[in-house]
């Protein structure tokens, strides 16, 4: 026979429909985010892993000023390493302002994945296939003709290059450059027919043995570098695949996103589980007499526990099912587009993911049921008599908490707060979590803007020319630039630091305010360097030259305000002497005007926008996600606050009824009961702010540890004001609902005979 208690469920769901619908929606959204993001992430990961094999992604590359000698090639290939020419032509001003690389046809390494159209015909001499994200951002379609260094080329296909799934223009860049940097491939014939302006000699290599460890790969890379130097090659850039952000950034990003999303799901499910526990505990108190009667009539504790566990179980199971269904179907394209808008990925292959499925079905249900079961087990361990007497306190409160001689209203509110401390504690965590999400959503844009502004303000020149050949350039300030590495204390890994050898004796130097020391063994570092490395003036830092394996201990003599890179500044003569160069050696110019230097003498050219513009593009691609993020945070805010402050009214509905009988007006009842919740809400909002900032800063340190650069924590006051205001406005909306509820509490409630 069906348990007659089950007949109560429809009534229970109907009576608390607001509670169940709002938690259901919150849980569904959480699960959609969890399942959708994890499925797409796992799909992307699998796709990239497969692409690594199928498209023969390189193990590294080097670029040289000139073609390398056959002897060098032979010496490298003796080590069971295949070297492939991966030459490309740079268009420095594609479409006016973009950097654009045209790679020669790839037959054996870094093979393109086709999205749409076809690859350029081998027999044609004017066809090109473009990177998908660059084409999308520039609104270039198949069939369009584009101008590359004066050559008109027909776009035949949209592709993704596996060595550029994240479009980093420079490996040291903080952010991808999805709008002003693009890559493409042409057929060998087309490449040959193109003007060779900006031709760059890139060689990609792959180890024959495919299961080398990272250490072995790194050792081999050092050997390759030594062979190149020994054979007279002038190496301009050398990057292993592991150190190449364009290849590894997405993998790393996913590696960090995965645990973050899981944590997000767990925390939110736990918050919802505790809300349910508070609400169910309140129901138990209200229905104590019924429970006592049922227990006295012979119902087992387990049957009662199960009865009160059913709503939790139903909501959690339904939400898991609906969340997964939507995550796999309706929302999958939205999550795909998050990756597609930021990364140049091959077409994603989405398949059923058992781990994601368990994490978003079994785990939320288990968390919800476990938290509520523990609460119910504990609550229902009292004797039936205690339930009949409505005496549900395990330990009797011996004495009332003594309060100072505040006025009656204040003492009353404090008593309400003490009465509901459990609910308010859960609400505090809920407010903390949702306002942290909100801080992230609202704060990301000003944070990035600040970074861009600071980088822009502290960049003291407009143009940087890195030279292939030393040539005079009127109006340019000579520099010697090199890259030395130092160990990053958080990861233990080497980090590349750009050294600028500048002329300290020139009063009109563009680095005049950089506080560059003239003494031997001293450097000035950028603010970003000092903050990321946690260094101060007077600290000695060990740097290593990967090319020569020489080490240098350098003392920080000054920290300048530059935030645009992780740089160190030395007197040019001192830097050259340290590196055993000629005193007046230089390999770059900086200037505020364009310089008259032949393209063939330039290894790399950068203008202000290239150095500071990527952040704005990143923000543009984040826009949709941030809006969704904020909407979700506010929704979570409202649901959490509504449910937990409603407990105060539910718990006190009888006494509110008395208040009405005694002659209290609606507003006076609000002052007694709702203002207590309002005070807790507002205090929670304010207390949470410094905690959120602390976590945000910790997240920033963590984020900075994953990237080459450094982004300082910055949130304008307006962000804090917005968070508190959104919290307060949300609460006042809720307050209006509660007022309505108070209005509906009948006086007859007080008149029923109660024991």
């Amino acid at each position, binding site marked *: 026979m069906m348990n007659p208690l089950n007949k109560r469920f429809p009534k229970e769901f109907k009576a608390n429909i607001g509670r169940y619908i709002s938690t259901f929606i919150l849980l569904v959204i959480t699960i959609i985010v969890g399942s959708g993001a994890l499925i797409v992430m796992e799909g992307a990961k699998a796709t990239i892993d497969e692409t690594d094999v199928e498209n023969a992604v390189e193990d590294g590359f080097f670029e040289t000023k000139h073609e390398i000698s056959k002897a060098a090639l032979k010496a490298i290939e003796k080590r069971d390493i295949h070297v492939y020419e991966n030459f490309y032509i740079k268009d420095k001003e594609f479409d006016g302002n973009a950097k654009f690389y045209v790679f020669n046809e790839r037959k054996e390494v870094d093979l393109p994945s086709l999205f749409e159209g076809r690859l350029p015909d081998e027999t044609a001499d004017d066809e090109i296939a473009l990177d998908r994200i660059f084409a999308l951002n520039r609104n270039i379609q198949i069939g369009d003709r584009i101008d590359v260094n004066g050559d008109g080329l027909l776009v035949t296909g949209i592709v993704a290059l596996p060595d550029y799934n994240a479009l980093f223009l420079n490996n040291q860049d903080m952010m991808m450059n999805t709008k002003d940097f693009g890559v493409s491939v042409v057929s060998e014939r087309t490449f040959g027919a193109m003007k060779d302006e900006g031709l760059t000699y890139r060689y990609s290599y792959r180890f024959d043995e495919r299961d080398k460890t990272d250490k072995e790969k790194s050792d081999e890379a050092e050997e390759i570098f030594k062979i190149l130097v020994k054979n007279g090659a002038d190496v301009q850039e050398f990057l292993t695949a592991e150190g190449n952000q364009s290849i590894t950034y997405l993998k790393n990003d996913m590696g960090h996103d995965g645990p973050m999303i899981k944590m997000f799901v767990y925390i939110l499910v736990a918050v919802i589980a505790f809300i349910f526990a508070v609400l169910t505990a309140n129901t138990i108190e209200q229905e104590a007499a019924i429970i006592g009667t049922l227990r006295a009539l012979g119902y087992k504790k387990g049957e009662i526990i199960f009865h009160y566990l059913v709503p939790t179980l139903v909501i959690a199971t339904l939400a898991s099912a609906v969340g997964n269904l939507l995550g796999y179907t309706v929302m999958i394209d939205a999550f795909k587009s998050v990756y597609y808008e930021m990364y140049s990925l091959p077409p994603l292959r989405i398949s059923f993911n058992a781990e994601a499925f368990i994490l978003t079905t079994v785990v939320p249900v288990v968390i919800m049921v476990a938290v509520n079961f523990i609460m119910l087990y504990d609550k229902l361990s009292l004797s039936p008599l205690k339930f009949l007497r409505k005496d549900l306190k395990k330990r*009797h*409160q*011996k*004495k*009332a908490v*003594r309060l100072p001689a505040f006025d*009656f*209203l204040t*003492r*009353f509110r404090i*008593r*309400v707060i*003490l*009465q509901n401390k459990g609910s308010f504690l859960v609400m505090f965590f809920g407010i903390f979590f949702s306002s942290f999400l909100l801080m992230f959503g609202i704060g990301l844009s000003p944070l990035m803007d600040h970074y861009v502004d600071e980088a822009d303000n502290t960049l003291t020149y407009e143009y940087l020319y890195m030279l292939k050949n030393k040539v005079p350039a009127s109006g340019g300030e000579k520099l010697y630039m090199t890259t030395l590495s130092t160990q990053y204390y958080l990861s233990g890994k080497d980090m590349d630091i750009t050294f600028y050898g500048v002329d300290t004796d020139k009063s009109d130097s563009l680095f005049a305010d950089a506080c560059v020391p003239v003494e031997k063994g001293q450097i000035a570092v950028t603010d970003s360097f000092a903050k990321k490395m946690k260094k101060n003036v007077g600290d000695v830092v060990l740097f290593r030259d990967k090319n020569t394996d020489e080490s240098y201990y350098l003392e920080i003599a000054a920290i300048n305000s530059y935030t645009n890179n992780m740089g160190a500044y030395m007197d040019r003569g001192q830097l050259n002497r340290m590196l055993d160069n000629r005193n007046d050696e230089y390999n770059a110019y900086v200037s505020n005007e364009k310089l008259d230097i032949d393209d063939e003498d330039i290894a790399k050219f950068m203008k202000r926008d290239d150095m500071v513009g990527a952040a704005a593009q990143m923000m543009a691609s984040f826009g949709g996600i941030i809006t969704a993020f904020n909407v979700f945070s506010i929704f979570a805010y409202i649901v959490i606050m509504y449910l937990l402050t409603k407990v105060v009214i539910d718990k006190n509905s*009888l*006494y509110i009824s*008395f*208040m*009405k*009988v*005694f*002659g*209290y*007006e609606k507003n006076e009842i609000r002052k007694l009961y709702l203002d207590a919740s309002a005070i807790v809400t507002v205090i929670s909002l304010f207390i949470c702010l410094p905690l959120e900032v602390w976590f945000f800063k910790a997240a920033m340190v963590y984020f900075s540890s994953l990237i080459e650069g450094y982004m300082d924590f910055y949130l304008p006051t307006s962000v804090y004001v917005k968070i508190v205001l959104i919290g307060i406005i949300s609460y006042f909306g809720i307050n209006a609902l509660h007022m309505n509820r108070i209005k509906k509490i009948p*006086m*007859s409630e*007080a*008149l029923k*005979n*109660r*024991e």
Partner: protein
Amino acid sequence: MKITVKDLHKSYGDGDSKVEVLKGINCSVEDGEVCVLLGPSGSGKSTLLNIIGGIEPASSGAILIGSDSTADMDEKKLTLYRRNHLGFVFQFYNLIPNLTVKENIEVCSYLSKDPLDIDELLRTLGLYEHKDKLPSQLSGGQQQRCAIGRALVKNPSLLLCDEPTGALDYKTSKEILVLIEQINRKYRNTIIIVTHNDAIKNMAHRILKMRDGMIVSDIVNEEPLSAADIEW
């Protein structure tokens, strides 16, 4: 405060399910009188008390409080009527469990422009030394004293008591009745006590007996006994 009830009817439901609880009640209670409303369960005495207290509306008829009719009062005026003139004492005390004894009394003193001195009242009630205790730390009698204190602190002109001794033992019940009597003598407020304890009628100035929604007898007791002398 004089209370006059005129042809009061109260019914619940419609059509076949219509139940008439009060069937034309006419009575009056003089200013400063202790009136006991007697009758078995379901006779309508609590409903009559609720209508006098402005908690439930009547279906027809009128309650005159002095010269004001509750039928003419809107919700706000009824609230003010309860606030300014009435004190309630319930069978099961209905104290707010998370407030101390003193704070429970302050709940009602907060509403009054000229409340009684709480400490003095607590002494009168014999609760002064318990003022910082929670209701759960008190005996039933002490809780009812506290509830009476809460009702009295506004110094109401009309005190409505619904089975005030219903949950108490004999000795404590007598103590409570003595207290009510003292209050009536001290403050001269009109008191209506709903009870089905027949003995309590002996301490009243007026005894109204109800059955099936009607008053079956309205007796003026010329020589009421002291509450201490009544027995049951």
